[in-house]
């Protein structure tokens, strides 16, 4: 085992973690601010991938299609999220969590059937743009360009979220709402639009995750269930509603999986769950402060 292999595996693990982060960030944001457990987050991710497929194949041919899809697909998902929040979710904020879970779970089924109606039950496949396909060599180990691209996108999203939450008025209201919702209401802030904006942002992140994954996976029904388990693991380990916790835990799980594949390939498949278990035993309420 040489150090180049180790370094490249670390890089691959980080890029995997970044992808988890993009999806989990949206989930934890909605969790923290709206206090809604959004089961449909995985469906929004799936929609992002399907939109990305449609935009990339219908709007433009070749290279431009991928980039256009990466821009438009998350926006389309954000729009749908906005409709969900204004049309459905806002009526049940005062209800018990069970009702919210029922609603978001029913959305999972509805979106599954909608996708089947629109795109059919066959899977779709999208190609990577030429500039991102192939790989480069680092100390004798090949790393795909696309993983490097994910490695750049992840921090960009994190930076954008930080700027939004820390530097904008809306972001500050979001954080305040997450900490003490009643106080925000008392201060006369119209929190309903904060909720709508946050839910749309969460949807945008899910859609972005889907669009980023579209060229490397089967775009198909069932991809929602695959990702939602990971997203929940990451959110719980990171501390419910804490975005930086989600960032740390997605990197831990991503790198952990990559190292597992290198050092104990027989056990790689259970590693994320083992890591989760250990972290939860050490810190039952999550790595960072949970808002709940």
């Amino acid at each position, binding site marked *: 085992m040489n150090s180049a*292999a180790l370094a490249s*595996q670390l890089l691959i693990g980080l890029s995997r973690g970044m992808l988890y982060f993009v999806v989990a960030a949206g989930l934890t944001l909605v969790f923290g601010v709206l206090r809604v457990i959004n089961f449909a987050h995985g469906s929004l991710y799936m929609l992002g991938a399907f939109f990305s497929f449609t935009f990339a194949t219908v709007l433009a041919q070749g290279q431009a299609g991928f980039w256009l899809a990466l821009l438009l697909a998350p926006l389309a998902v954000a729009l749908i999220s906005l409709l969900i929040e204004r049309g459905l979710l806002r009526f049940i904020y005062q209800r018990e969590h069970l009702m919210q879970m029922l609603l978001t779970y029913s959305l999972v089924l509805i979106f599954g059937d909608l996708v089947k109606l629109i795109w059919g039950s066959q899977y779709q496949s999208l190609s990577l743009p030429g500039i991102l396909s*192939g790989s480069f060599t680092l100390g004798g180990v*090949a790393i*795909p360009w696309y993983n490097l691209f994910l490695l750049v996108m992840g921090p960009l999203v994190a930076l954008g979220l930080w700027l939004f939450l820390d530097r904008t008025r809306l972001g500050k209201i979001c954080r305040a709402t997450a900490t003490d919702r009643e106080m925000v209401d008392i201060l006369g802030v119209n929190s309903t639009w904060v909720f709508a904006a946050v839910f749309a942002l969460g949807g945008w992140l899910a859609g972005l995750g889907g669009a980023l994954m579209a060229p490397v996976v*089967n775009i198909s029904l069932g991809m929602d269930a695959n990702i939602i388990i990971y997203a929940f693991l990451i959110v719980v380990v990171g501390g419910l509603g804490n975005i930086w916790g989600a960032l740390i835990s997605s990197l831990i799980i991503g790198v952990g999986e990559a190292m597992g594949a*290198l050092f104990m390939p027989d056990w*790689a498949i259970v590693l994320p769950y083992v890591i989760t278990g250990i972290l939860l035993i050490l810190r039952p309420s999550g790595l960072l402060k949970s808002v709940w």
Partner: protein
Amino acid sequence: MKRRKVLRYLALAGVLSLLASSLLSGCGQQPAAQKPTGKTITVGIIDSYTGPPSAYTQDALDGFQLAINEVAKQGGPTIKFIKRDDEFKVDKAQSWAKELVMQQKVDVLAGTINSGGTLAVSQYAKENKIPFFDWGGMSDKITGANGHRYVFSMLPNTAMIGKAGAVQMSKLPYTKYWLAGSDYEYGHSVVANLWSNLQKLKPDVQKVGETWWKVGEPDFTPYIASIRAAKPDAVIVGTGGADMVPFMKALQNTGLAKDIPVWIHTATDAGTLKPLGDNAPVGVLGTNAYFYYYPDTPANKAFDQAFSAAYNRHPTAFALFGYMTGKFLAAAVDKAGTDKEKIIDAMEGMTVDSPIGPMTMRKEDHLIQMPMFYGKTGKDASGKVVATDINTLPADQVMPNVDDVLKLRSK
């Protein structure tokens, strides 16, 4: 006031639409009554028409449809079918089997691409004495350890694939192997069969390590990088259905197949290569049951033309499995009528012409005897990625030993 009116209209519209739909569906059921002349048999099809496996299951269904159309045109028995989607779930496959037999009164069952589902339906078929044609599940348990009188395998199982793959790899100068695959029945079964056969053919091979990932893995890069770091001579991969296309994409992006030879069953199949387009990796080794362009015989050309004319795409291996199921069933009904036990007696040892030469249903274990092909992905004259360097292995070289199979069953 206004609101109440609207509600009333809505309710009226609802009642009317319910009435209309019940009337329409009632009408639809009437002409489905039985034809008085000729032999008629109804097949209950259970397969995964949702998600990634649908790329293969639709081919099987279309192949079957093509066969029964041809049979009907030639004045053979009338074959009807009712299909059900098991969504790749074992429990659904089993409950659809019950529904098809008890409610729809089908005579025989066919399907299913999920080997677990195949085993469940097979168990039901055994208990209720219903003939079951497996055209999707490849596990060697189906006609091996769990085999019985009522199940027929219409496609090469993992024992045949493993044997063919071992022949292919034994001709290459590699000794240090890495075994990898998707962590489910088919993945483990195909790798285990290939490895045990390869060890017999070439005793000096050694295993460097193993990697198993979960089905539906979103990113294969860490697994591929770790395999590359171990520097084996070659890699044997057991993956199919859901993971096949993304894994081939990952092979292309990481360039693994350029440095280390990789073997995957169906890597060279048209069903795998078509969705990859220009992104298909070159140099991937693999076995396959069918190519529409090889062997270049009139029978194969005719099948390709008939399938392409009907469905606007080339037939794949699964299209052939579905097609041959239709042909075998028609021949059996033609010979023996619609009695279930007599159909089984007729099937045993029966030989039917296929686009790639005659196929025989082996009497002892109900495993179809068909040739296998091996080759590797490469570019043809027009730059399209296809199977190249194709070799044929006749059926008798890839079939598992009958005595071994029967020994497994008695355990």
